């Protein structure tokens, strides 16, 4: 099989899977399909899912494997055009106006034209993403869009539909090569349908035990075989419990590397309860596993693993 040449987009769903696997991102086929389509059709990819399932990571991996520039826009409440798209360099503009005055060439029309030119424009992530790049169109990551307010969402519509922004003083800036857009959301509120309609949607779920095990092996290289299997199956069992916040893949990896650092070779109830804070982030959830509960779960996991052997 020919490997995908650097910088070029993958030619099939299988190639997309390989591409992600090269960067140690082990995706399932549904994710590879939607990603391939997004790249092929030039549509933004909208990823929703619980925290810590690797949504943001996809954009990073894409940028790294395709050799593109990664431009990240972290959303927050109150995010506005001045910090997301562009801002004028007011200090420099003031100086330019003063200089024009001092020189006596105070033609008002000309001064205002000079002052609102490309030279005084500070480009923020969205505008940067529309600019041509030598290594190909960049990857634009709009992270945690649910944190921004609705007003910002409405603004994004123009950017995502036509890959252009309008700066009143300059005119419309349109991307020659549309960037690869990845939008993530933790679903702390519903994102408007109008925005989702322009994207390909995918819900990133928790991986299966088998895939999670491969992820652990890929990301925590030195880990003992037995420990990794116990860790993964314990976490999988935890997700079935009635927890307020189930641990994500990120937590599994944190836990695996923490235990690996502690030179643990196999799980025991004491270690589990000592390190539970790495996995669970709510006191109520931790309290549920106190006492004999952790031991029971561990015994069950062991029994299952033994049966599988």
């Amino acid at each position, binding site marked *: 099989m020919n490997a995908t040449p650097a910088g070029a987009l993958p030619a*099939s*769903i299988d190639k997309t899977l390989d591409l992600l696997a090269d960067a140690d991102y082990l995706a399932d*086929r*549904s994710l590879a*399909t*939607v990603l*391939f*389509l*997004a790249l*092929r*059709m030039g*549509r933004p990819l909208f990823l*929703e899912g619980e925290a810590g399932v690797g949504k943001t990571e996809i954009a990073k991996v894409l940028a790294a494997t395709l050799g593109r520039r990664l431009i990240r826009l972290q959303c*927050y*409440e*109150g995010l*506005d055009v*001045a910090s997301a798209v562009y801002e*004028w360099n*007011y200090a420099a*503009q*003031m100086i330019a*106006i*003063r200089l*024009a*005055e001092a020189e006596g060439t*105070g033609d*008002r029309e000309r*001064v*205002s034209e000079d*002052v609102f030119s490309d030279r005084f424009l500070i480009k923020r992530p969205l505008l940067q993403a529309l600019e041509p790049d030598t290594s190909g169109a960049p990857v634009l990551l709009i992270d945690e869009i*649910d944190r921004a*307010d*609705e*007003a910002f969402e409405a603004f994004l519509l123009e950017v995502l539909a036509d890959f252009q922004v309008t700066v009143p003083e300059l005119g419309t800036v349109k991307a020659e090569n549309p960037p690869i857009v990845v939008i993530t959301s933790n*679903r*702390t*509120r*519903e994102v408007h*349908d109008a925005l*989702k*309609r322009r994207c*390909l*949607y*995918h*819900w990133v779920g928790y991986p299966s035990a088998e895939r999670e095990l491969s992820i652990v092996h890929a990301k925590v290289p030195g880990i003992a075989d037995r420990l990794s299997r116990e860790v993964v199956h314990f976490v999988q069992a935890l997700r079935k419990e*009635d927890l*307020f916040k189930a641990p994500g893949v990120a937590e599994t990896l944190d836990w695996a590397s923490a235990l690996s650092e502690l030179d643990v070779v196999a799980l025991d109830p004491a270690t589990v309860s000592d390190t539970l804070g790495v996995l669970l982030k709510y006191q*109520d959830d931790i309290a549920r596993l106190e006492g004999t509960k952790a031991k029971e779960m561990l015994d069950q996991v062991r029994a299952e693993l033994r049966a599988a052997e």
Partner: protein
Amino acid sequence: MADHQTEAKGNAGRLAENIVYFARALRAAGIPVGPGAVLDALAAVRAAGVGTREDFYWTLHAVFVKRHEHSALFDQAFRIFFRRRAYIERLMAMMMPQAPVPAAAPAKIVSQRVQEALFSGLSEKARREQPEIEVDARLTMSDREVLQTKDFAQMSAAEILAAKSAIARLVLPLDEVRTRRLAPMNRGHVIDMRRTLRSSLKAGGKLIDLKYLGRRTRMPPLVALLDISGSMSEYSRLFLHFLHAVTDARKRVASFLFGTRLTNVTRALKARDPDDALAACSAAVADWSGGTRIASSLHAFNKRWARRVLAQGAIVLLITDGLERDPDKSLAFEMDRLHRSCRRLVWLNPLLRFDAFEPRAKGVRTMLPYVDEFRPIHNLESMAELCRALSAAGGRAGSLRRWLDAA
């Protein structure tokens, strides 16, 4: 037959046709699929160069599904639609009324919505049989829940009119919170360099007239949890009208109904016409006028919805009489969690209409310590009162003390 090219072309045409039919079925099943999405689907199928069934599945999924909740509906629709070749033909036969319908019963029971959407073209008799099976299946689920879907048409005309006009006359809450978003303001706290520079350029750059930005205010989201159990049945219909009026006037309102289970009716209440909205609600709810399980309903809300609807300083209206069948520690726990995750928790209790009401019931006493406000809601006057209280931050929170002392 011999001409392979024509055959291939014909197949491509059929695929397009199938996708169009499939989109139509999805739409009828409740997944909003526009004509644009159909074109996208065709482009996507062509781009992906569909090989396996799985790839085909996820390709259509990528284009048609825009919400996680729709995944299950899509899955079922896909399984029925593309199960067998014969099935596709059967389905197309149904779409075209003049063709004879081959008789075959679906082997598996799937969601009623999907089933109805796919078989809406079936003959009258077959259609009548379908719901009967469904009703039987429902009755076996639980004998404690009264699983009947109450028809809002039964509401007397006079009743509707009186409620509608009175509720329309209500001045709806105008509670505002300050956001981090800035807007031009005369007495703001941040200098707006952009406008300042523009206006000084107008004056030739000699004068610098400072312009300001201030924090914009916005109505916080409102979340209503409405008890529709038997003991509340006299009120719940009117409250639904109230919620509809509020949903109409405010941008972000999420409404939930609970009896023995929790149902999200936010979308249903968005219909412009109150009758349509209430009919949609009534269709969505299965446990109308049954028992109450406040603790488990609150648990479901806290776990599944709280993080999705309580962001950005939401106010929660909890409308219930608090008559929990067997209140225990979990009720206090869930109330505490709810209270900690929202900005203000207002409990509206129709039982407060009795002057001699005392918080004797154990459920009421368990819940009281966790609410910010406790108010009556049993007639239009108290609804108006509520609106006034929501407008002024804090309201008359002092009234809570009286109940807490009594408890």
